[in-house]
């Protein structure tokens, strides 16, 4: 048994294997696992003019907004106005993941579980609304119904309340734009250590004026679409949605004959501790290496990388530089689904995890769309514009965040026939 003080990234002990058996996704290219998978394969784009808030005065204002989401279609227990838009996405995603995993609420309720949900902005869209009221009607004006739902804890608590879970640890993980991977990694540790049997993990965020304005001010909003790794890339498009993964121990999945999308092999975390918004190449490389060590793989095992891939000039170069530092010159194909669904903030790496799980199960690599000419400074095969079929064993999912918070997740293919063993 390895000692507690093993090198960062190494596991303390052999534990339970962890698998993903259900997916719930709310995205601008499709809600529900089938629509999302179809959107990824088809290289669909969620980009459109923003309707979430008034964009008068901005020179350009596209985002990957979800325009067909109806909370009432998913909420059975909670009134929609008790939840902000991000929590509504999270709850809808959790309901989908449970159903997709072939479970009822009662099945989940019967097990000790964890709900961990990542986010960047929590209910900042509601805070925008309250601020707008204060500006228009006076400083002390408050909408009490909205005011009660703004706290980030409600993203995870909303899922727990809607599903009626009781033997559950409920935590929101607001670790910005890598939060989804943090939340999934936490689920992995909780299940693999035997602390819980099942986990609903992922991330959720809603479009908001605050975040659009901030990125616009930094000069990082693309005028039309997001083109990761392209020579002419101009930045991100903000996006919204939720990705929720139903995770359980392998024993649990096999015992109930569940369909397994993928195995969670491990993950790694690192902090740049240098700059609040500019990512650091060495630190990202260290995070990737920690993830590989935790998962017990080498770089040569990785069949493709789902990059953080924001599509800004600087970040794509830094991220690819970090990947090259670990992999050498022989890079696996490196894609960014943000080209399709935008930067969904705290949901981003959770949705990318869901995409990786689908890719492993169905044998394809999602494309990087809107691509014209690969930037030689990036120099990756980003699977331009069209998905490719591929026999995949191991996939790496990168998440980077403000604050220098990096999280890299490693997922593996699950062979159904090995279930007999």
């Amino acid at each position: 048994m390895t000692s507690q003080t093993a090198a960062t990234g190494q596991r303390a002990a052999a534990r339970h294997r962890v698998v993903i058996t259900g997916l719930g996704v709310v995205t601008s290219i499709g809600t529900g696992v089938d629509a999302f998978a179809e959107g990824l394969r088809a290289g669909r784009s969620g980009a459109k003019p923003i309707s979430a808030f008034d964009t008068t005065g901005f020179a350009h204002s596209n985002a990957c907004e979800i325009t067909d989401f109806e909370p009432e279609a998913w909420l059975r227990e909670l009134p929609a106005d008790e939840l902000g838009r991000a929590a509504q996405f999270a709850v809808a995603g959790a309901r989908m993941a449970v159903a997709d995993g072939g479970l009822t609420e009662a099945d989940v309720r019967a097990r000790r579980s964890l709900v961990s949900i990542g986010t960047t902005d929590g209910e900042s869209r509601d805070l925008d609304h309250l601020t707008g009221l204060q500006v228009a009607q006076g400083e002390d004006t408050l909408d009490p119904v909205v005011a009660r739902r703004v706290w980030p804890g409600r993203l995870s608590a909303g899922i727990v309340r809607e599903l009626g879970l009781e033997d559950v640890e409920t935590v929101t993980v607001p670790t910005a734009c890598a939060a989804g991977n943090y939340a999934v990694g936490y689920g992995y540790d909780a299940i693999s250590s035997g602390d819980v049997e099942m986990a609903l993990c992922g991330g959720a965020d809603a479009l908001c004026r605050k975040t659009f304005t901030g990125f616009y001010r930094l000069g990082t909003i693309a005028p039309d679409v997001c083109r990761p790794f392209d020579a002419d890339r101009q930045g991100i498009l903000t996006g919204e949605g939720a990705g929720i993964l139903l995770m359980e121990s392998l024993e649990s999945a096999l015992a109930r004959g569940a369909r397994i999308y993928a195995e969670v092999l491990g993950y790694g975390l690192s902090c740049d501790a240098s700059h609040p918004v500019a990512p650091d190449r060495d630190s990202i490389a260290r995070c990737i290496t920690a993830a590989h060590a935790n998962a017990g793989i080498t770089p040569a095992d990785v069949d493709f990388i789902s990059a953080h891939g924001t599509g800004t000039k600087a970040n794509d170069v830094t991220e690819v530089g970090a990947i090259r530092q670990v992999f050498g010159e022989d890079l696996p194909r490196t894609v960014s689904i943000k080209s399709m669904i935008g930067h969904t903030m705290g949901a981003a790496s959770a949705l990318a995890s869901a995409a990786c799980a689908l890719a492993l199960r169905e044998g394809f690599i999602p494309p990087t769309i809107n691509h014209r000419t690969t930037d030689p400074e990036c120099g990756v095969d980003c699977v331009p514009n069209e998905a490719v079929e591929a026999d995949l064993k191991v996939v790496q999912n990168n998440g980077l965040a403000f604050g220098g918070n990096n999280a890299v997740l490693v997922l593996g293919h699950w062979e159904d026939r090995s279930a007999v063993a």
Partner: protein
Amino acid sequence: MSGHAEAGERRLVISGWAVTSPYGLGRRSFAEGLLARTTATAAVDTAAWPVPYEDAGLIPDFDIRSVLGRKGTRSMDRATGIAVVTVGELLEDFGQGLAADPEKTGLVLGTSGSVQSIMDFTKDALTGEKPYLVDPARFPNTVMNCPTGQSAIRHTLKGPNVTVSGGSATGLLALNYASRLLRGGHANALLAGAAEEFSVQRARLERVADHGGAEADPLGEGAALFLLESGEAAREGGRRVLATVLGSRFRAFPETGRAGAALSRCVAEVLSDAGVAAADVALVAPGTPPGLLGKQEEAALDAVAGERIPVRPLVGDATAASAAFQLAAVLAHAGARPALVDRLALVTALDRDGTVGATLLRLG
């Protein structure tokens, strides 16, 4: 959630702590105030803080620049300043040797970020000459992991850097998160705890929240951080074991009237996992939320022995930092009373959004 089988050396221990509270900066003022049961809340200067509260537990004369200097603090918000100061104190007093291994030392901080920063940023966008003429240096403040990331930047913590949130259970959730990261091999030592700021916008939002059908308590602010590592690592680092973490349990309650039953089960499970009895508990630091939730907590703790240490009635409702303050209060008592060595302490939390938690420690 440590299992029985875990050997003593591999048990996780608290080997350092730091606190910034309405009693002032540092452990000493906190311990003195708390042990003397001095109320730290006071009348708010409503000219400086136009809030719908008469009293609050503010950190006295807290000024980021006078504590941290001018460098790198121009855009720093209060929540971040409080976290950075407290992390600094913990490292200064207990961090010897950790700096040699910055990649294996990290931070798990409980916070809801700064609603004031988020709303100020949007306000600037709505009232400025152009909708995008906001201060870009303040954009990172609007993301909830800002206090955590800035603490790492100021103090070079390159290991896992995680932000967690769960209302008044936040401090216990952060400690448990850090425990899992350590057991999963993601770091050698973690600073874990929680921070909360007092602000006008937080006060407005809290005013209309559900306080168990009761009047809202005065708001408090501050941070409490703990150094968490294996017993072996503490010994190697020359640090004294202040407490051993025997475990944490969490549950959810569907309605306020069932919070007590949920907490009772948490407490029973955390005791039974550790192989100890309710009669053996020497100290209890309850969350003491107002109204029905508080009554539910009292009932749930009926069967548990031990002296009750009040925290919230003295420092105010520190929301995200409240359970971390309770944990700090346990260590303050233990530090002042040698008879508590080897005795058990229990910290409980009930959050209005449905989470209850209990953490069990063996002192000294």
